[in-house]
């Protein structure tokens, strides 16, 4: 027994015991504990294994920089790997397991790596595993890969929920320690909208671990007083358990709130974690400082901890880290810990001070070794003693814990995330935050101010400056008085001399001093090279503890200043954030919104099988009893449309109402074909190009009155075309008198197609729809029987006699029902996208399978449609480029199999008969293919080099991916009704 719970003290609730499990063993902790403090209270020093050498490791810190005490919490789909025990809030029933060990934490086979460590020095991967050549891929790499990682991700569906929220404030204070609390109070009293965020479950920061008195109160009580006032202010929001992880452009901060990570059974109506996007006019970093480890021989033995952590465990959690604690320090903090231990009655084995002339006062009777160095530690799974050297004399001193203090680093992470580099302060022996403008200020220990009294004053002062800057007036304030402070200043010590064992810099990744030396020797001395070569700072703590020492060591080894070495780049996330929290509710079926057509219910009633099409769900086919495959349904639907009549939902096409004196001119510039003279009451097929001359989209546009047009776009590009038109109208031609808006959602639109379509349409509308009164491409407002107003268009994608009827969306279902009813006598059927695709394929009509963004109008056979008369339209000039008019371009053709029972599919490539497959011999590809029930064999549209000259030629449809080769005849791409007799009937 070494570590233990003190009999009294701390901010834990001794009346509320909580049982939890570690590696299957039941242990007991208290409400207010972290998992780490509870483990220590149970004398569990060994908590993990390091990454490379699998060395036994214990708790080092009491906070988010913990490199060693990583555990998996929870079971099955609720397990969280790599959770830091030092920040995990204890709850009854918590189930934690150690990681990266097999078969057990105590007996780990992987520890053999430790014996091989001479071969596993920095960069060893790159020099080795190359012989014999074939072995890397087959033998070495799989072994290395299997050794990867720490915790295990189960990759099962997470049963819990997450959400995201936006918040706005005048001032965001990051950190609710002494500085942050004072800043929030000052700003809150002045009436600013303040958000005070703190990563701990209990706000107060270092005040929770302090033994000084403030305004005559113990520090934690003082914190509670400030918090009580803040809670009473409606303009102040306190957010505990909230880590601000990133600082983004325009003072937007990302923060994650652990809403229910500390409960065994989360409530279903609340998320477990919540992502906050905080838009802050100003922000104040009051993130405090991080204690710096000392780099000495054997410094990774379980029981070696940060001095401040030893103090925190004693003062805040009422836990002694050992019965006899040795302290190794280069500054005042070691003496503070000594005082804390003495106050709790814990034995201090020795204080080793690296400095010769320090005048810090040790507790009475404590042995102090000045100018001393720890060169090694004793013990196996926990420390049992230290080897101390002073002026060439060596001494072994028994102890069961070591508190180390290498000084302090301001926590400046957020301030350095947007490109500005940390600035070295020779006075403070630390990197300080750069000046990043007035959006973000830094205060207190985060600004290198280590005296508590000064922090309280700095927090209030910096807040006052922000208050004035934002035009508020500060309420005058009396600063609290502090008694009993210890001066935490220190002298830099990058490396404790005389190490007799590996002296670790990065604990988790097992980077020790010699690795950095090797990196330097091999030319990897740049701080980024050294990081990448040795992996120093790349572990889950991202170098919070190791970065500064690596910089210091690289500087010392080269005899230069740490300023000349610099730091590696600080990047989000300050501490790791779960995918789930960053994704929020936008996942699974809710990854994107669903758009539903007004005819969705109608389709569903009629047996539709839906397929997603962009954000929409559209009917793919309408299964009837006895049909077992989509092909059966589709073939029936196609034949029925060709022979009788069918009805299809086309509501998802983009619809745009265009008005204005210059509407026609606008369209004329937008489309490559002419629109100026489109008569009122007529629709026209239009082809829109990109400015580079390639086809962008197609559709029909109808002239409903002289200054009112109605455009349809494809479903896929409805949004894109709208944006393109807005760009043209607003940016390119702002002086054209044209206005437009989308009416896609206003109309339910149905295509009624087939030789008997007219009977159905005439039964629905009052107006005369005969060919004479309403010929092909007629377009006008109509009145349905009963008075409902709609629009009717005589356009056809299927190639049949066809109408598109549009009615106000809420009436869509009823009208479609009526159409089915009226059509029953004519054999009407509903048809879906699959049938529509076959119908258009038979007719040689194109879709985005053909218009894939690399196709010119001429490639697709629309060359003559492009107006030569118009002086300008989008895409005109660049469509004349050499490569876009070259004779060997691929042109759209039809294909039919030479043997009628042979099939082919889209994506196959084309070869000349007898030609060897090669990129050079590649003649083109199939863009769309399918079985034509009308013709009784497969047909395809394809793009073939100089294709229009090659009708009648045989080509090989080469589908190596599918293992087929089919001989096909090149033909005209219109397979059905090339004379348009049906269309015009």
């Amino acid at each position, binding site marked *: 027994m070494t570590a233990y719970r003190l009999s009294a003290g701390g901010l834990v609730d001794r009346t509320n015991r909580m049982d939890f499990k570690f590696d299957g063993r039941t242990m007991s902790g208290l409400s207010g504990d972290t998992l780490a403090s509870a483990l220590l209270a149970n004398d569990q020093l060994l908590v993990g294994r390091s990454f490379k050498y699998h060395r036994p490791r214990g708790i080092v810190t009491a906070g988010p920089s913990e490199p060693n005490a990583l555990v998996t919490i929870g079971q099955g789909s609720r397990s969280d790997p790599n959770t830091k025990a030092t920040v995990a809030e204890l709850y009854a029933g918590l189930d934690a397991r150690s990681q990266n060990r097999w078969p057990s934490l105590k007996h780990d086979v992987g520890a053999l790596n430790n014996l091989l460590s001479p071969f596993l020095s920095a960069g060893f991967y790159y020099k080795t595993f190359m012989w014999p050549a074939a072995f890397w891929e087959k033998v070495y790499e799989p072994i290395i890969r299997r050794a990867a990682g720490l915790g295990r991700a189960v990759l099962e569906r997470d049963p819990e929920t997450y959400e995201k929220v936006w918040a706005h404030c005048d001032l965001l204070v990051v950190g609710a320690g002494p500085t942050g609390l004072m800043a929030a109070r000052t700003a809150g009293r002045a009436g600013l909208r303040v958000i005070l965020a703190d990563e701990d479950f209990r706000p107060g920061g270092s005040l929770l671990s302090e033994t000084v008195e403030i305004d005559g109160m113990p520090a934690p009580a003082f914190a509670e007083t400030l918090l009580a006032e803040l809670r009473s202010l409606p303009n102040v929001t306190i957010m505990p358990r909230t880590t601000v992880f990133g600082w983004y452009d325009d003072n937007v901060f990302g923060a994650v709130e652990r809403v229910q990570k500390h409960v065994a059974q989360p409530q279903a109506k609340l998320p477990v974690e919540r992502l906050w996007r905080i*838009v802050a006019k100003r922000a104040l970093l009051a993130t405090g400082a991080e204690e710096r480890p000392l780099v000495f021989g054997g410094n990774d033995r379980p029981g070696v901890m940060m001095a401040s952590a030893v103090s925190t465990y004693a003062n805040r959690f009422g836990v002694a880290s050992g019965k006899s604690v040795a302290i190794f320090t280069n500054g005042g903090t070691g003496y503070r810990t000594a005082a804390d231990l003495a106050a709790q009655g814990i034995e201090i084995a020795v204080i080793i001070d690296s400095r010769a002339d320090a005048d810090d006062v040790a507790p009475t009777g404590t042995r102090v070794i000045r100018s001393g160095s720890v060169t090694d530690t004793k013990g196996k799974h926990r420390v049992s003693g230290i080897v101390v050297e002073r002026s060439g004399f060596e001494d072994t001193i028994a102890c069961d814990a070591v508190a180390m203090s290498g000084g302090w680093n301001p926590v400046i992470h957020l301030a350095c995330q947007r490109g500005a580099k940390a600035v070295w302060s020779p006075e403070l022996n630390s990197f300080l935050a750069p000046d990043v403008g007035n959006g973000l200020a830094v205060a207190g220990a985060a600004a290198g101010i280590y005296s508590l009294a000064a922090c309280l004053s700095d927090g209030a002062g910096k807040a006052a400056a922000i208050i004035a800057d934002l035009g508020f007036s500060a309420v005058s304030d009396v600063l609290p008085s502090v008694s009993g402070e210890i001066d935490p200043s220190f002298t830099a010590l990058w490396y404790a001399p005389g190490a007799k064992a590996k002296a670790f810099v990065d604990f988790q990744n097992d980077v020790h001093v010699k690795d950095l030396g090797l990196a330097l020797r091999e030319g990897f001395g740049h701080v980024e090279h050294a990081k990448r070569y040795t992996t120093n700072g790349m572990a889950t703590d991202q170098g919070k503890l190791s970065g500064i020492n690596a910089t210091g060591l690289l500087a010392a080894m080269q005899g230069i200043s740490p300023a000349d070495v610099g730091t590696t780049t600080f990047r989000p996330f300050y501490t790791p954030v779960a995918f789930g929290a960053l994704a929020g509710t936008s996942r699974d079926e809710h990854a994107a919104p669903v758009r539903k057509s007004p005819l969705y219910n109608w389709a569903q009633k009629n047996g539709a099988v839906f397929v997603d099409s962009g954000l929409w769900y559209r009917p793919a086919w309408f299964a009837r009893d006895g049909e077992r495959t989509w092909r059966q349904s589709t073939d029936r639907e196609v034949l029925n449309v060709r022979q009788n009549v069918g009805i299809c939902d086309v509501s998802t096409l983009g619809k745009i109402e265009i008005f204005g*004196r210059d509407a026609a001119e606008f369209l004329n510039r937008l489309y490559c074909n002419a629109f100026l003279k489109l008569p009122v009451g007529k629709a026209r097929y239009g082809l829109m190009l990109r400015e580079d001359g390639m086809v962008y989209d197609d559709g029909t546009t109808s002239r409903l009155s002289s200054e009112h047009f109605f455009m349809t776009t494809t479903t896929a590009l409805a949004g894109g075309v709208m944006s393109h038109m807005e760009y043209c109208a607003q940016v390119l031609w702002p002086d054209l008198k044209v206005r437009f808006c989308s*009416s896609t959602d206003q109309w339910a639109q149905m295509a009624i197609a087939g030789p008997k379509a007219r009977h159905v349409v005439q039964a629905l509308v009052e107006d005369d729809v005969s060919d004479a009164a309403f010929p092909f491409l007629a377009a006008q407002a109509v009145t349905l029987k009963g008075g409902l107003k709609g629009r009717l268009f005589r356009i056809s994608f299927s190639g049949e006699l066809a109408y598109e009827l549009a009615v106000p969306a*809420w009436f869509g279902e009823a009208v479609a029902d*009526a159409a089915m009813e009226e059509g029953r006598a004519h054999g009407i059927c509903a048809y879906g996208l699959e049938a529509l695709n076959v119908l258009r394929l038979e007719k040689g009509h194109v879709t985005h399978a053909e218009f894939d963004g690399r196709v010119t109008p001429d490639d697709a056979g629309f060359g003559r449609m492009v107006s030569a008369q118009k002086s300008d339209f989008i895409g005109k000039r660049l469509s004349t480029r050499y490569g876009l008019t070259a004779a060997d371009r691929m042109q759209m053709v039809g294909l039919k199999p030479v043997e009628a029972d042979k099939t082919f599919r889209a994506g196959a490539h084309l070869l000349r008969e007898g030609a060897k497959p090669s990129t050079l011999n590649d003649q083109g590809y199939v863009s769309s293919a399918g079985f034509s029930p009308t013709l009784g064999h497969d047909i395809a549209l394809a793009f073939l080099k100089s294709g229009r000259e090659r009708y009648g030629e045989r080509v090989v449809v080469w589908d190596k991916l599918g293992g087929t080769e089919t001989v096909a005849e090149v033909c005209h791409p219109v397979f059905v009704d090339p004379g348009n007799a049906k269309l015009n009937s």
Partner: protein
Amino acid sequence: MSKTYISRHPLESRIPADPGIRAVDHLEVPQRVAIATVMAAEGGDAFVAAALAAAGDLSLRFVAPGEWLALSQLDTPEILQRNLSLLLAEAAHIVDQSDGRVLLRLSGPNVRRILAKGIATDLHPNVFEVGTSSNVLCGHISVNLARTGENEFEVIVMRSFAESLFDDLKTMGREFDLSVGFST
């Protein structure tokens, strides 16, 4: 043959006929609102804005410079369209959107906390004042948001997105036991 077609509210399948107990935070869906897009013709922005503002029986929602949604809870779409045409004549283009939009009304003490889960705009009472309206993104869906009372907001969404938005709002309100129902 003459027919009377029945119109269906796009959220019919989502909202129970029996609304149950109304919570303090409530999502109310009016059955039918006449909505039209009004686009001022070139140069007519100021005139149209003034004319619309003067027409007392309309609710106006800002969409873009020279573009608004005009709402009427009383008139039919046809009457709204006719009234707007009479009012604005050549000065504006009017497009009926009554079938293309769905209006939802959120109210209650936690309404801002609910909306903040989807909307980035600062909805603080002093910032987003009563009468303010604007198109905003709610989650992944673009909507028109208006503050219509102390703790009341109206959201207008495109018909095809209505179910998705409705589901999203319910999820956003789950924490506060948000209740839903058609207007009675």
